[in-house]
């Protein structure tokens, strides 16, 4: 019969419509700003910098590996120098990531040998400033290890175990001060959905000067 196939198709849509009143499985959408889906633990967005305890105690040593490996070249690092001697200190003076260029590929986090840069889960970052509004400086990027634990608990525990081992190896007799901040994080808190960055909004820094060696 001509039209049989069309009736079959309409029956499918009708079945789905009616089932959606009884079966929550059929309602596949959520009311987004009011409801949010919980992200999987592995979910990644933009990178951030991890610090232990206080923001001064950041893990980054400004080795510039992530800057070299970043495929879209969105990281810019300057090493801090000692005020008197002018020798480089193992920490960054400037650490900028241009979120408008970053493509969330996670390669910076993978190549970092110090576990200093990790992937955030904050995706609501729209802004009105096209030119530098998404340029994040060091202050905006710094987030605590506890925050990292909330987001990626399994991965963070592995990282903590690895770091404590390497510290023990480096200084076997003086393991006490190194172990102190890590014992705090041995029991991770229950994992809520990360809603907002803990650090307040930071005024954007001036644009990154172009790199000379590219």
């Amino acid at each position, binding site marked *: 019969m001509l039209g*049989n*196939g069309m009736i079959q*198709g309409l029956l499918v849509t009708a079945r789905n419509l009616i089932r959606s009143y009884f079966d929550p499985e059929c309602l596949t959408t959520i009311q987004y700003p009011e409801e949010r889906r919980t992200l*999987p633990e592995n*979910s*990644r967005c933009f990178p951030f910098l991890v610090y232990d305890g206080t923001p001064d105690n950041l893990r980054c040593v400004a080795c510039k590996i992530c800057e070299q*490996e970043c495929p879209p070249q969105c990281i810019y690092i300057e090493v801090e120098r000692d005020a008197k001697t002018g020798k480089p200190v193992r920490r960054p003076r400037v650490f900028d990531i241009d979120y408008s260029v970053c493509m*969330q*590929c*996670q390669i910076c986090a993978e190549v970092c040998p110090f576990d200093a840069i990790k992937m955030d889960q904050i995706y609501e970052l729209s802004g009105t400033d096209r030119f530098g509004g998404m340029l994040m400086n060091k202050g905006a990027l710094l987030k605590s290890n506890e925050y990292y634990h909330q987001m990626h608990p399994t991965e963070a525990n592995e990282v903590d175990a690895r770091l404590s081992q390497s510290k023990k190896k480096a200084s076997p007799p003086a393991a006490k001060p190194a172990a102190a901040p890590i014992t705090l994080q041995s029991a991770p808190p229950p994992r809520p959905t990360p809603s907002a960055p803990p650090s307040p909004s930071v005024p954007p820094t001036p644009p990154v000067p172009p790199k000379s060696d590219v």
Partner: protein
Amino acid sequence: MIQPLTMPEQGYTLTPKEDAIETQMLEVSMGPHHPSTHGVFRMDVVLDGEEVRRLKPVLGYLHRNHEQLAEKMNWLGSIPFTDRLDYFCSMTNNWAYCLAVEQLAGIKVPERAEYIRVIMAELTRLQNHSCQAGFLLSDTGAWGTPLLYAFREREKILDLFEAASGARMMCNYMRFGGVRADVDDDWLAAARKVVENYPCFIDELEALITGNEILLARTQKIGILPRELAINASITGPMLRASGVDYDIRKVDRYGIYGRLDFRVPLGEVGDVYDRYYVRILEMRESVKILQQALRDIPEGPSDAGVKMRNFKVPVGDGYGRIEGPKGELGFYLVSDGSTRPYRYHVRAPSFINLTILEDMCVGHKLADAMVILGSVDIVLGEVDR
């Protein structure tokens, strides 16, 4: 003074009209904004009435200099860019590139990683083909409804991708010698559930559209691609198999673990739009079979060969790695000069080569059919333009 426009010399003649009214060809530029939801693509169509007399695909609106970028970047850094080639199938793009590099560098991939790769590639094929059916129906005028049924299922697969790799579309998951992160048992259980329910969805999709008389009238005997022409034009993928050529790289090359998996290759008979649609439906059913076997047999073990990521160097030489992507043969031709970056990097993109035959299929059909034929080619402009 305005010069009167004259048609340049063309290689066609006017059809004589019975009422002897002087008519002339009309040249229409369709696009470059989404002529049929496939991306930024333009067609210069010469029309006689509603009939297509000549068709020229105009490409390059989405050109991103992918190959040159990859030559300026180290081997690892190209993987996230391959995601952006065919943004529906980032997993298979990653795999093809990693396969080429592994051949070149002689890296052995662990067993578990091979299984994970097959699972990811077949899930990609499922979501690509179901969405392609939806897009084809959008082109015929069934705007939205079948596509949203396909997208509902795609969401479930993208959730799996997100749980395993961290991202939904730009997965960046494969690495040289394995995959970036191992999957756990919870993930495998979730994948089994999705795979188990997928035949129900294929049945539903078929009930929704396959028997529809309008679809049959719009697709059967439209855009026939003869077998010889398909081979000569180096068409690959479901398009080639719809023309009746038994050529599937999963069977020919037996890369990965495909040699020991049991599946069949569906073939078309006529080579029209309907065959191209239906071959994809049948391929989805075979993909479900492959997934069931892979999820059943996946062994324990390492998911990575432990290849170092920084300063990764490849011995001097050239190599071509190819896989059967959802759209056809996706190949990467790489030349290495022994340094940390490729000397030459070339992508053999299936969408691009399948698109070259568009004119031969469209000439003689109505303009509205040209849209349907374009939809049946299954292109993604990110891959066509690179």
